[in-house]
C-alpha cells in the first residue's frame, strides 16, 4: 500500500466518520472510500502501542514504582518535564528512600497509558505533590521488601541492612535482592502514608546536586527517549499547519480551495466551521500552503478590539464580579482616623509565555484509537478535553507527555495537541504533526492577564502600618482545558462547537494579594473583568502583579515613615523564615549596597502563594539619562524552599525565574489594535537578550527537616519589585506601570 494514501473507509459508517472527521466542504485529494481502517499496526509507529486503558489505582505502590529483576526501579510520575529539572529530583527522592544509586532509578513521565493522574504540572507543586507521593510509595516499598526479606532470611526486620537493592542479614552471608523478592510480582499493596521514611540526617542522595541526564541529549542533538516533541518523527508522518483567523472570533467565509489543492505535496485541507488547516507531505510544503491561505482565505471580522490605551482606566467600570479576600469593618472610618494616607495605583500589562519553540504536537488515529504526543502540562485533563471535542470515549485516547520548549504555564501546548487530534481523525492511519508558526504562537497563546492594583495604606504613631487596602481588577488567570472542550482553541472555531469557555479561575488573580507583613486592618477586594485578549496561567499567575504592587508600596510606605526599606519590612515581619531570606540578601549586597553613577540597589520579598517558598531579591540598576538606557546589572536572590532535593536544580530555577522576571519587568507588553494583536515576533515583542542580562547569584537556605516547598515561581514577583525600588532609589522616580522603561522615566521626569 502506498504509505501516503489514507486507509480506505468503505465499510465504516461513513456518516459517523464524517461527523467525527467533519470535513464539510473540502475533502482529501487522495481520499479513497473503498475499505475500512485496519492495518494500522503494520506501519509500526508504536502509536497505538497501549492506547487508553485505565491506569493503576494510584493508592497502590506499583502505580508509582516498579521493581525490575536487576533490582533497579522505574518510577512513574504524572508530572511532565518542561525544563524545570523535575525528573532528576523525583528520582533522587525514590533512590533515597529505597537505598538505591541514582542510576538505578529510571522515570516515566505523564502518560495516560502508564502514569498516575496528577492533573497539571503547575503551581510549583511537583515536588510537594508528586515528590510526596513517590516518597511515600518508595518508603512503603522499602518497608514491604524488608518484611519479605525478613521472612526469607528468617530474621527480624530490625536486623536487616539495605544497600544498592541488596538486603543483608546480621551475619552478612545471607542476603537477598529487591529483584529476587519481587520476582515479577509487583508490590500491589496500598501506599502507607505512615511507612517509615528516612531521616534527613541520613540522606545520601537528596540534598546533593545531581546532573540532569537529558542535558547531554540537548547539547548534542542526539536522538533519545528524552527528546523534544518537535523532533518526533514517525513513519508516514504528515505535516500540518492551522490557519488561524486574523483576529479573535473571525468567521471563515471562503477558501481558495482548488489553488491550495494543486500545490505540490498538499494532501488535503480540513475546514470545519472556521477551523482551517492544511496537510502536506513536506513541512515546507505545508508552510507554503499556509502562507497562501493566510493571504487568500476570506474572513468576516467581528467588532474591533477595544483600544489598548484605555485598558487600565476602563477596568473599574467593567467589573463583572468581586471576591473579598480579606475584609475589615469600618474601613473608611479607620482611614479617617490617620494623619496621612499613602495611595498608589500599579498596572501590569498582558504578557506572553513566549516559548522559544512554538507549540507542537503529533497525533495518530488508527483502529478508532487516538494517540497524542504533547508537551501539555496536563495529559489527563487534555485527554478529557479532546474526548469532549471529538466525541470520542476517553478510553480510546492516549495522551503521552513529551518534552517541549519551556512553557512557563498554559501556553499553546494544549491547543496544538487539539489541532493535531482534530486533524488526525480526519486523516486516519497517518501521524499528523502540527507545529505552530511563530506569529500564531505570539498572537494566539493565552497571555498572562493584565491587572490594575490600587493600594492605600496608613501608618500609626510608631510608623507601623495600621491599615491597608488593596483593590485589584484583573481578568482570570487560568483557562486551562480541565476536561472542557471549550477551552481548546480549535474547538472554539469548529462547526457546532462547544459553548463559549467558562469564566475561568479568578483565584490566581489575588494570589499573593495578602501582604506577608503584620497589618492589623487589612481589606482586599478582587474584581473580575473580561479583557479583550485570550488569557490563562502564566508563571506565578497574579502573584507577579500583586507582589510588584505590594513590595513597591512597602518602599513607598517606608519612605513615608522615613525609614530604611529593609528595617521597615523587618519590623513588620514575624515569620522567621521570611526574615531570614531578606536578611541574607541584605547581607550579601551589603545593603544599601554600593553602586556606580546613576545606580542603586532595591530589595523585595515574598512567600509564593503565602505557603510555598520564601524568596527575597535585591536588584542593582543603572540609569543613563543621556543614553536613555535603563539596565539591571545584578540580581541577588535568597530562597528558602524547605528541604532542598537538588540544590543545583533549585538554583537553576531561581536564576531563571529572576532573569525571566527581569525581562517581563523591563521590556514586555503585548500590544494590539482594533484588528488584532500586533505583537507578532521578537521585534514587536522583545525579550531580554544576552548582552542585557544581569549577573545573577542565588543563596540557598536549606532546611532539611522542613517539608519541601514549591519554588519554581517564587522569584517572579520579588524581582519585579526589587527592580522598581532600585529605579526609584537611583532616579527619585517611582514607576508604577509595568514594564519599567527608560522612556517612561524620561517622559515622567519632564
Amino acid at each position, binding site marked *: 500500500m502506498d504509505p501516503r494514501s489514507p486507509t480506505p473507509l468503505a465499510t465504516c459508517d461513513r456518516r459517523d466518520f464524517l461527523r467525527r472527521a467533519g470535513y464539510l466542504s473540502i475533502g482529501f485529494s487522495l481520499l479513497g472510500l473503498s475499505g475500512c481502517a485496519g492495518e494500522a499496526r503494520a506501519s509500526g509507529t508504536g502509536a497505538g502501542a497501549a492506547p487508553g486503558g485505565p491506569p493503576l489505582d494510584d493508592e497502590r505502590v506499583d502505580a508509582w514504582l516498579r521493581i525490575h529483576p536487576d533490582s533497579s526501579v522505574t518510577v512513574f510520575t504524572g508530572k511532565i518535564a518542561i525544563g524545570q529539572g523535575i525528573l532528576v529530583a523525583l528520582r533522587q527522592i525514590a533512590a533515597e528512600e529505597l537505598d538505591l544509586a541514582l542510576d538505578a532509578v529510571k522515570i516515566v513521565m505523564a502518560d495516560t497509558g502508564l502514569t498516575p493522574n496528577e492533573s497539571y504540572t503547575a503551581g510549583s507543586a511537583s515536588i510537594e505533590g508528586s515528590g510526596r507521593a513517590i516518597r511515600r510509595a518508595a518508603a512503603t516499598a522499602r518497608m514491604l521488601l524488608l518484611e519479605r526479606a525478613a521472612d526469607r532470611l528468617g530474621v527480624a526486620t530490625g536486623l536487616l541492612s539495605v544497600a544498592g537493592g541488596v538486603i543483608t542479614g546480621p551475619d552478612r552471608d545471607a542476603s537477598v535482592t529487591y529483584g529476587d523478592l519481587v520476582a515479577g510480582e509487583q508490590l500491589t499493596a496500598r501506599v502507607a502514608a505512615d511507612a517509615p521514611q528516612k531521616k534527613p540526617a541520613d540522606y545520601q542522595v537528596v540534598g546533593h546536586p545531581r546532573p540532569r541526564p537529558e542535558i*547531554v541529549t540537548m547539547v*548534542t542533538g542526539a536522538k533519545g527517549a528524552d527528546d523534544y516533541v518537535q523532533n518526533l518523527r514517525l513513519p508516514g508522518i504528515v505535516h500540518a499547519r492551522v490557519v488561524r483567523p486574523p483576529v479573535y472570533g473571525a468567521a471563515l467565509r471562503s477558501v481558495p480551495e482548488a489553488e491550495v489543492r494543486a500545490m505540490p505535496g498538499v494532501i488535503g485541507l480540513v475546514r470545519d466551521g472556521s477551523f482551517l488547516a492544511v496537510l502536506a507531505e513536506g513541512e515546507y510544503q505545508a508552510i507554503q500552503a499556509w502562507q497562501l491561505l493566510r493571504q487568500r482565505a476570506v474572513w468576516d471580522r467581528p467588532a474591533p478590539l477595544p483600544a489598548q490605551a484605555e485598558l487600565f482606566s476602563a477596568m473599574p467600570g467593567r467589573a463583572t464580579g468581586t471576591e473579598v479576600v480579606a475584609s475589615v469593618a469600618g474601613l473608611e472610618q479607620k482611614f479617617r482616623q490617620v494623619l496621612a494616607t499613602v495611595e498608589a495605583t500599579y498596572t501590569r500589562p498582558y504578557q506572553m509565555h513566549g516559548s522559544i519553540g512554538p507549540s507542537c504536537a503529533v497525533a495518530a488515529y488508527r483502529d478508532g484509537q487516538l494517540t497524542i504526543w504533547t508537551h501539555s502540562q496536563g495529559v489527563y485533563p487534555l485527554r478529557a478535553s479532546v474526548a469532549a471535542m471529538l466525541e470520542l470515549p476517553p478510553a480510546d485516547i492516549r495522551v503521552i507527555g513529551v518534552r*517541549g520548549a519551556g512553557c512557563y504555564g498554559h501556553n499553546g501546548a494544549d491547543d496544538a495537541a487539539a489541532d493535531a487530534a482534530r486533524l488526525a481523525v480526519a486523516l486516519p492511519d497517518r501521524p499528523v504533526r502540527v507545529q505552530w*508558526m511563530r506569529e500564531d504562537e505570539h498572537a494566539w497563546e493565552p497571555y498572562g492577564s493584565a491587572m490594575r492594583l490600587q493600594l492605600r495604606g496608613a501608618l500609626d504613631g510608631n510608623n507601623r502600618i495600621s491599615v491597608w487596602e488593596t483593590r485589584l481588577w484583573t481578568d482570570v488567570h487560568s483557562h486551562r482545558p480541565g476536561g472542557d472542550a471549550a477551552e481548546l482553541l480549535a474547538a472554539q472555531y469548529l462547526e457546532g462547537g462547544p459553548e463559549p469557555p467558562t469564566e475561568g479561575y479568578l483565584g490566581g488573580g489575588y494570589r499573593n494579594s495578602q501582604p506577608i507583613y503584620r497589618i492589623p486592618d487589612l481589606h482586599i477586594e478582587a474584581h473580575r473583568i473580561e479583557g479583550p485578549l485570550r488569557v490563562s496561567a502564566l508563571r506565578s499567575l497574579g502573584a507577579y502583579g500583586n507582589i510588584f504592587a505590594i513590595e513597591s508600596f512597602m518602599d513607598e510606605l517606608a519612605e513615608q515613615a522615613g525609614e530604611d526599606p529593609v528595617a521597615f519590612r523587618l519590623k513588620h515581619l514575624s515569620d522567621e523564615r521570611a526574615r531570614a531570606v531578606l536578611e541574607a540578601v541584605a547581607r550579601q549586597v551589603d545593603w544599601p549596597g554600593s553602586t556606580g553613577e546613576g545606580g542603586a540597589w532595591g530589595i523585595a520579598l515574598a512567600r509564593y502563594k503565602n505557603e510555598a517558598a520564601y524568596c527575597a531579591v535585591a536588584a542593582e540598576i543603572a540609569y543613563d539619562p543621556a543614553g536613555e538606557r535603563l539596565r539591571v546589572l545584578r540580581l541577588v536572590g535568597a530562597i528558602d524552599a524547605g528541604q532542598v532535593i537538588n540544590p543545583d536544580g533549585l538554583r*537553576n530555577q531561581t*536564576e531563571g525565574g529572576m532573569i525571566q522576571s527581569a525581562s517581563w519587568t523591563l521590556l514586555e507588553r503585548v500590544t494590539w489594535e482594533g484588528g488584532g494583536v500586533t505583537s507578532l515576533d*521578537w521585534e514587536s515583542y522583545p525579550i531580554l537578550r544576552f548582552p542585557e542580562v544581569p549577573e545573577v547569584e542565588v543563596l540557598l537556605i536549606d532546611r532539611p527537616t522542613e517539608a519541601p516547598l514549591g519554588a519554581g515561581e517564587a522569584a517572579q514577583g520579588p524581582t519585579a519589585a526589587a527592580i522598581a525600588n532600585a529605579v526609584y532609589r537611583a532616579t527619585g522616580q517611582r514607576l508604577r506601570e509595568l514594564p519599567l522603561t527608560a522612556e517612561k522615566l524620561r517622559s515622567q521626569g519632564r
Partner: protein
Amino acid sequence: MSQSITLRVNGQSHTAQLDPEMPLLYFLRNALELNGPKYGCGVQQCGACMVLLDGAAQPSCVLTVRQAAEREIETLESLGTPDRLHPLQRAFVEVQAAQCGYCLNGAILCAKALLDENPSPTRAEISAALERVLCRCGTHSRIVRAVARAAETTPTTE
C-alpha cells in the same frame, strides 16, 4: 520547479531534488533528520535554527538551499556525541547550563564560531556573540559561564 541541489552537511555531500527556495532548516530537519537546528521564529530573530556556514554562525530558517549549496554546513551534531562530547558540550553539561534546552543549539554554535576566532573571549565578548540567540528560561548566566569554562579548558593551539 524542484531542481537537483547538492549540499555539504557535516562533511558529507547530499544531492536531492529540492525546491531551491526552501529554507535550509527544513532540509536539515526533515531530509537528514537532524535534531540540532530547530524552528523558532522563521525570521532570523531567535537563533534556534543556527548552523555554521563556512564556520560562521548563521540562522537556517531564511537561508535557502540554493544559497547554501556548495557551502560547508555544520550542525550541532558535527561537534560531538554523548560518548564523545566536544569541550563546549562538556562545559554545558558540567555547568548544567540548560533548563528547557531549546536554545542550546544556537548558543553552542554561536560559541563555537566565537571560540574558533577568539579562544579567550571576555564575558562581554561572549554575551555579544550570543546576542542573536534568545533564551526564555533565563539560563543566560549559566550559558555564559559554560562558554567561558570551555574557553579556559580548550587548548588554544587546537
